[in-house]
């Protein structure tokens, strides 16, 4: 696969920043650390022969089993996975970047987990990251205007998290 050459370049350049590479999956992905994210993205955007100049989608997947019996059966600890789907208009190639972050920075204080924002790399990420913040509760450091986009501005809670419960009422309207 042509991605092997790219992966070698990434590993050479970023070393520990690249956690795992999974080329055998249906969509090959590269997992990076949160701290190396921006550098890797900028490199991918500018690298010769690949030029991943479009960020198609940013998704946050909440890995948490609220049922403790199911939680015992899986081999992962609760975390949030951010998935960046990239593609290149120039070379028509695609790539997936993943980052794993904890679910809370400080659970007691309900502080959201942090990750650097790639809004400086692809401008379309501004709205995608707002949506991730709004629905999954991830704080993007360096984002120009991080506020809710789909839910109302004064909504509480992050709906797509697995342990989310609909509020009992919102401005006098019954929630559940």
């Amino acid at each position, binding site marked *: 696969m042509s991605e092997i050459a790219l992966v070698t370049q990434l590993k050479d350049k970023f070393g520990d920043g690249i956690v795992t590479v999974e080329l055998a*999956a*249906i*969509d090959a992905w590269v997992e990076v650390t949160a701290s190396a994210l921006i550098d890797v993205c900028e490199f991918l955007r500018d690298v010769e022969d690949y030029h991943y*100049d*479009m*960020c*198609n*989608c940013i*998704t946050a*997947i*909440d890995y948490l089993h609220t049922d403790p019996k199911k939680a015992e059966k*899986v081999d992962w600890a609760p975390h949030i996975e951010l*998935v960046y*789907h990239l*593609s290149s*208009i120039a070379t*028509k190639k*695609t790539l*997936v970047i993943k980052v794993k972050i904890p679910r809370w920075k400080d659970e007691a204080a309900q502080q959201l987990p942090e990750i650097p924002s790639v809004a400086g790399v*692809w*401008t*379309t990420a*501004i*709205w*995608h990251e707002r*949506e991730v913040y709004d*629905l999954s509760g991830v704080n993007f450091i360096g984002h120009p205007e991080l506020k*809710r*986009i*789909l*839910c*109302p501005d004064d909504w509480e809670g992050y*709906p*797509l998290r697995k342990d989310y419960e609909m509020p009992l009422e919102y401005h006098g309207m019954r929630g559940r």
Partner: protein
Amino acid sequence: MSATNIDDPRVIEFDVRTDEMIINMGPQHPSTHGVLRLALRTDGEIVSDLEPHIGYLHRCAEKIGENLTARQFVPYTDRMDYLAAMNMNLGWALTIEKLLDHDVPEKGRHLRVLICEMNRIASHLVAMGTYGLDLGAFSPFLYAFRERERILDLFEKTCGARLTYSYIAPGGATADLPVGWTAECSKFINQFKKVIPEFHTLLTTNAIFIARTTGVGILSPRMAIDYGCTGPVLRGSGVYHDLRFHGEERYTELYDGYEFDVICADSETGKYPSSHQEVYKDGLEYPDVPSDAILGDCWHRFYVRMLEVVQSVRLVEQSIVKYDACSGSHGEPIKLTQKLPVGEAYLETEAPRGQMGFYVVSDGQSNPWRVRARSSCFSNLYVTAPLCRGVLLADVPAVVGSLDVVMGEIDR
């Protein structure tokens, strides 16, 4: 961002500087294509800043997807881009098939091309009609809907619904086409080909329409890619990219053996592909690009859609022939409670409004762990803000209409 762009030749200079006014266009407004709120800051008639607010149609489709099986989720995809519901169904079906590694028989593939291209025609007719309506031309809207009604009648014969079809399911389609459907479809296409020049007369070559749309909302190719714009918005800026050619193999194999062009202006000559003019030897003239039009403005985005309709007509004709020549199954849909294998799959298709992507993460159950819909209009809408700075108020519906947004897809 500048308050007033004095160097812009379209600006009327003010002697008296007035206070800026903040007004809301929407969420109830005749021309914002759904419930969209555009907060405008205007200095007289010049818009100095614009911020789109979305979320009025958010129906938590992604959360719902975690509680339903793959086949049960199909109606929810209909309601995303409800004007091109077949294409939404196709995107979801292909993603699930990618995850399952399930192949659809040949007849089913041709059926999918036929149905999706018909829906592309219908969707572009709506886009074109409502764009004329935004600019004040009332009649093309009705002409477009007259043709669309005929397409919707054909769709009603396939699946019983006029707007939200849930027809293309993972595995194939819910039912095969009725007997005689392809003959009626051919009849419609032959009549429709003659009607297309009417739209060119009413809109594309109309002097007032050209004055309203050329030079307005110019989107450079770099900005388009940076803002994640896809579909006719991207091709209207001269970027040669169409997923039916350049996408994933599971999607491009649907279009193997079909002849059609990617509608994109050639970067050197600025001309559009005209191979369809050799195909249509009945003397139909397709208008040239007017001299005022700059690549990437609203006129070009509109023209790309008009020419894509012609390409879709070609595709429909070819797919009718191929479908009729096939025998076998149209593709039975997968079981209702089909368990999805562990893994994840992402697939983008070329929907009429852009690249629509579906992302499914599964942990082995029949309900997916995570469903994500990547909406084409979501990224297309964001580009409104930089495009509309410094334009006149009347240009805002022109720009928003040329981006052809549907709120159902943006808010999901």
